[in-house]
Structure formats: structure tokens, C-alpha cells
């Protein structure tokens, strides 16, 4: 008997969302890397993380590499674009936390504008630890960068009205809907944002991310279920491309934080951090992420190569 290859054809398709002027995200009609089933859509995109303040707690070698630019996020963004050419830059306002610089939304907007002017790739804006403050920061930043089509990470259940109205409706940018590792919560937030008037082409989603080893099975299963609902059952409320800030999680777990002196057998701390970032990124790309945010330039290079190998 001759071998017959199975095929899974789906009626649904993930929407294509354009970040900035022309960075296309999503658009696939098959499971991740299933090019043998059909159209992969746009290859997954990678962004690099920078902060509005000089970073702390980052690995020594990386700090050494960026020491001349870390004081100035605009220069830092330029440095990454020139040397690594990421698809986008993620500017994260750690400096807005009360225990760092407690920056005002106006200050954040000023910085975001400078960074936007300094590079020709789109931005993804990420906030601080407070949802309430993020609503105010995003409003100001979205106003300063009106109609740029930049993404804002994120609108959560607690602030989606303010963030959705400002980012998505008033100032023509993209809202990232963030929920915590549950298909129904993700769906509900997408619906709420849509009811508010945010257009699906102005939406991305982050259904929740953790590092491998830290409840990552929930992340994978949520992604599996979202993609199957979107493709198999043609659930339009879940056909929103997925963006995940890998680095926000992987660099704070024990495997990436513990110093070599404390666990000598584990070896170099930076190597461990990169490995955790790579494995987590591959883990979500294989389950359905359309874009990932990474911190270390070496992880970035590896994930870029991985995506190329899997989509060529």
C-alpha cells in the first residue's frame, strides 16, 4: 500500500495586522510552521527590548555592549537597528515605576517621541507595573505618536476602556489585549475591545506568557486552543495575531538570575539566560505566537535563524 500523507485544511485564517507603515503580522491559515498544510502567512516577527532608563539586573556582557547607549533610549534603539536589524523595537517604561524614576506620562511621551524619530522601524510601547498608570502613560504616548500604528502592551481587563479608547480609537494606534492564560478570558477581552469600537485590524493579543518550567503548559495549551478555535472553528474573535514579550518573563526566573557563585555547577549566568529566552521563544512560536519580544542580541540572532530555517 502506498503512503498517503494526511493533511489538515482549515476554513479559518488569522487576520493580518500591519504594525507601523508596513510590518505585516499574522495572516496564516495553518498551524505554526505547518507549511506542508498550506499558507504560513507572514513569517513570525522579532522585536528587541529597550528601556527608558539604563537597565539594572541585566547580564554583565550585555551591559558592556550597550554601555555607551543605555543612557539614551533613542541612541540605544538606533544601535540595535543598525547592528541587529530587528523587525521592531519595544520601548518599555520601567522608569515609570514608583520605585525607579516615577516618570510622568508626559515625560514618557517625550521619550517615546524621540525614540520614534530616531529609528525607521515600528515601535511597540510597553508600560510599567501599574495598570492604572499605564492607562495614563499610553494615552499620552499614543497622542504624541498619533496614527503611527504602533502597538501598546497592553490593555488588560482593569484598564481596557481607557487604553482602548485612547490608543485604538482616539489616536490611531494598535491595542494589545492581554489576558492570563485562558482561552475564554482572551476571547472576552477581544470582544470587549471590539464592542468599545476598536477595529480588529488595530488589535493584537497576548494571551499570557511565562518562562519554560513556570506553568508553561498553560501557555502552550492556551495557544493551541486559540489557534484551533481560530482556524478549525473559524472563530473570528480569536483570529487576532499574537505578540508575546518573552524577555519580560524569562530574565526574572531563577535559572536566569542565580549567580554562578551561588550555583557553580550551573555555569555562566548569561548562557543560562539566553537559553531560557531561546527555549521559551521557540516554545510559543511552535504553538502559535506571531511575534516575540527578546532581550539578548544573541537570543535574537538564534530565533531569527530558527524562524528562517522553519519558513524558508
Amino acid at each position: 500500500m502506498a503512503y498517503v500523507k494526511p493533511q489538515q485544511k482549515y476554513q479559518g485564517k488569522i487576520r493580518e495586522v500591519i504594525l507601523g507603515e508596513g510590518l505585516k503580522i499574522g495572516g496564516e491559515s495553518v498551524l505554526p510552521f505547518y507549511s506542508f498544510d498550506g499558507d504560513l502567512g507572514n513569517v513570525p516577527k522579532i522585536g528587541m527590548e529597550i528601556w527608558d532608563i539604563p537597565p539594572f539586573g541585566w547580564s554583565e556582557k550585555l551591559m558592556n555592549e550597550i554601555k555607551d547607549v543605555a543612557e539614551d533610549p533613542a541612541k540605544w534603539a538606533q544601535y540595535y537597528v543598525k547592528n541587529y536589524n530587528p523587525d521592531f523595537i519595544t520601548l518599555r517604561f520601567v522608569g515609570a515605576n514608583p520605585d525607579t524614576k516615577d516618570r510622568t506620562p508626559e515625560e514618557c511621551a517625550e521619550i517615546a517621541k524621540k525614540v520614534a524619530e530616531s529609528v525607521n522601524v515600528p515601535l511597540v510601547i510597553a508600560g510599567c507595573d501599574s495598570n492604572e498608570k499605564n492607562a495614563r502613560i499610553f494615552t499620552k504616548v499614543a497622542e504624541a505618536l498619533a496614527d503611527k500604528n504602533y502597538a501598546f502592551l497592553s490593555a488588560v481587563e482593569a484598564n481596557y476602556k481607557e487604553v482602548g479608547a485612547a490608543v485604538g480609537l482616539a489616536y490611531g494606534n494598535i491595542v494589545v489585549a492581554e489576558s492570563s492564560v485562558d482561552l475564554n478570558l482572551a476571547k472576552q477581552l477581544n470582544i470587549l475591545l471590539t464592542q468599545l469600537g476598536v477595529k480588529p485590524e488595530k488589535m493584537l493579543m497576548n494571551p499570557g506568557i511565562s518562562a519554560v518550567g513556570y506553568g508553561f503548559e498553560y501557555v502552550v495549551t492556551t495557544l493551541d486552543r486559540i489557534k484551533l478555535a481560530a482556524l478549525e472553528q473559524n472563530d473570528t474573535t480569536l483570529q487576532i495575531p499574537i505578540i508575546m514579550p518573552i524577555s519580560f518573563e524569562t530574565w526574572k526566573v531563577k535559572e536566569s538570575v542565580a549567580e554562578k557563585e551561588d550555583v557553580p555547577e550551573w555555569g555562566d549566568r548569561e548562557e543560562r539566560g539566553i537559553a531560557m529566552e531561546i527555549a521559551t521563544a521557540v516554545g510559543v512560536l511552535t504553538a502559535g505566537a506571531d511575534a516575540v519580544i527578546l532581550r539578548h542580541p544573541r537570543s535574537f540572532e538564534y530565533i531569527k535563524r530558527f524562524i528562517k530555517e522553519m519558513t524558508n
Partner: protein
Amino acid sequence: MALTGMDIYKLLPKKNCKECGFPTCLAFAMKLAQGGVDAGKCPYMSDEAKKKLSEATAPLMKTVKFGSGDKTYTLGGETVLFRHEKTFVNRNRFAVMFNDTMSEEEINEKISRMNGVNYVRINENMFVEIAAVKCESKNKEKYMELLKKVKNECKLAVPMIITDDPEIAKAAVDEVKELGPILFGANEENFEAMVNIAKENNLLLGVEAENLEALYNLVEKIHSLGYKELLLSTKAESAKQLFEDVVNIRRTALISQDRTFGYPTAVFVNRLSEDKFMQLSYASMFIEKYASIIVLDDIDYSLALPLFALRQNIYTDPQRPMRVEQGIYKIGQADENSPLLVTVDFALTYFIVSGEVERSKVPAWVLIPDAGGYSVLTAWAAGKFSGKSIAKAVKDFGVEDKIKTREIIIPGKVAVLKSDIEDALPGWKVVVGTEEAAMIPKFLRDYAAKRS
């Protein structure tokens, strides 16, 4: 085709005799459909019906074994493509590759790194389970020397013999057969001889072909020789092609319900790239989809920590969340004056909370009572996270002897528990902590500063 409970019911005698241990034939039929009971339990079924049933209820993917004693492992036996549909059953196993053209120094270093990776993560021992020993030299003496060395020095690992030469394979099997090795290397040319060696010793036989079509034909030929302890592999040269092959082997078994491909697969990610982090990338992908043996060039903690953690997550049964052991955990250099926090025994919650406590750099104690393995709010709603369970843990784990503080920090989401806990723990004061774990570092730093 798989039968439904109703299909099976039609084949049963419908006597409701209860001799199978079930109250009715219908209940028995439903259990049969789930694969939870053997059809032979029914004493009154016709032979024809029995045959039909055993064919239809045989697993689509075979469960195979290798190793020996406490190092016996099962592979395959998977019933779903996505873990939420039921669960993944038999976790993949990792192998590190040795070959007999490597220098002695290289081999020694590799053995020492491999033996060095051995640790416990949430009640599971983590180490490389397989030593893949490849004959590259075509020289039997040389190969046997390496195999003996690996056998003697990698005590934790089961050998995987890799050769396509039946003569060498035979000698190798004789050397290590008590360890239950995997014999890898049946192909189009040698399969008859290799099947004989595997059959004689009841070994798991690795089968390899250029592509899926060739592999399919080869497995059919091996089936006709009556051997079904197989591990499948293709020689795909690109990651993309190998992924396609592995996914389709699984789908052929589970969707097309064709048992020719109803076996676990082995992937050699070390063939796809020499770079260790590219191997890490591919291995991570194949843990999720759907390899059973993943062969790496080498191992160290930077690879082991993410790979074993990812595997542990993916193979967690969705119906049985991971729990950490109850007890009192010391974070950092905590002493008798350090703060005490309490949270639930749901592994994910514990990991996030202990991670944030670590990040705060404030040495502290984390008390884990028996909270049923649920998250904070669920455990509270179920009455498992209460004054009673917390007071019991304080007593059981000798908290009052270990530390001097009589303040206990509880998750902000269960602030309502304050008086319940204070009633159950005379002399203690409850401090309501943060609603989100992410706020713990700031909270703890402020709390510690206020106390000192």
C-alpha cells in the same frame, strides 16, 4: 476506525450480568471505548465480536519499552495531537551522542558533563537517559572499546547502539544486552538481519529511511517479519523537513488511523546544526511536537535547565496540576528574624511567589500548607486554604521553633482570611500582602525596612 461506546454496545450480549464488574453492558461499553478496560472481561461475547473489538480498540500508537530495572522507559502510546484533548502520556527522553572517531579527551569531557547533569525539579530526577553510541569508524574493535567505556562510565544512561552493520550490531548487543539497549540502524538493506537481532533480545529497534514514503514501505516489510517494537526516524536534512516528517508520522497514526506509523519517533537535532543553541531551539520544538527521543551533541546545565523544564511542563496531565511539597521553604539566607509568607501548594503559584521573593533580595520564609494543589482563589473557595490548614502547617512544620516572628504575610486576594487565621493561630498577627506576585519585591523591601 475507532468505535464509539454505542458501536461497542451493539456487539455486547446486553445481558447486564455484571460479571465484567460494571453495572450494565452500556457502562462496560463506554469504558471500553475509552480504552480503560480489556474486552476479555466480558465472558459472553462472541469470538467474532471479540476479534472486531480488539482490532478496533488496539491503541493507534504502540507503547514501546527500552532499558532495564529502574531504568526502564516507555515511549509512544500517545492518543492525542494536543495535550488539552486528554494528555500526553510518555515524555520524550534525551540522548547525548558519542562516536568512535572522537578523541579520547573529547569523550572523557562529554562523559563528565553528562554525568554532571543530575538534579531534582518538582519531584522529578533530571538527567540524560540515553547514551547514543555511534559506529563511525566501521571498525568493530574500536566501536566495542567506546561502547564498553560508555557502559562503564555513564551509569545513569541506557545505551543506544547506532550502526547499520549487523555484525557489529550483534557484538554490541551481546556486550550491553542486560541494559536493554536501543538498537538503531535498520534500513532498506539490512532490516532482515537487524530484525533478527532485535527479536532475539526483545529490543527496541530504530528504523531509518530517506523519507516518509520509504519509511512507510520499510515498516510494512518489518511488520511482515512479525516485529513491532519500533522507533521511527527519517534522514531529513533540514529542520523544516524533519518537523514535517515527525508531525506527519503522528498524524498518520492518530488521524489517518494507520498503525504502520503507530510508533514513537527519534530526532537527531545534532545533525541539523553543530551549534548548541540551534540544537536547543530544535529540541524545544520537538518536545512540543512530537519526538520521543531527542539526540543532542552534548549537554550542560544551560541546555538541561530549559529542556527538562519544558518537557516537565508539556507532559503534565492537564487534569492533575503540579503540586509542590508542603513545608517551609527558605529563600536566600533567611534566619530566625526573617519575614514569613504563606501561599498555596499549586506549583505554578509557588514558583512565581518564590521567584518574586528571591528577586526582592529580602531573605524570607515561604510556608506551603496543604491547599489541595489549587491556585489561591480556588483553594480559598474550596475551603482548602483557610485558618485551619495554615495553622496546621505552622504546627506540622515547627514554624514557631524555627523563626521568631509572629507575623504571617498572606496573599492580598484572600484578605478576608485575616481573622479566620488569627483565630486559628493564637498569638499571631496576619499581614495582608499584595494582590499580584509582581508587587512582592517592593512590598517585602518596605516591610523589611519598617521592621528593622
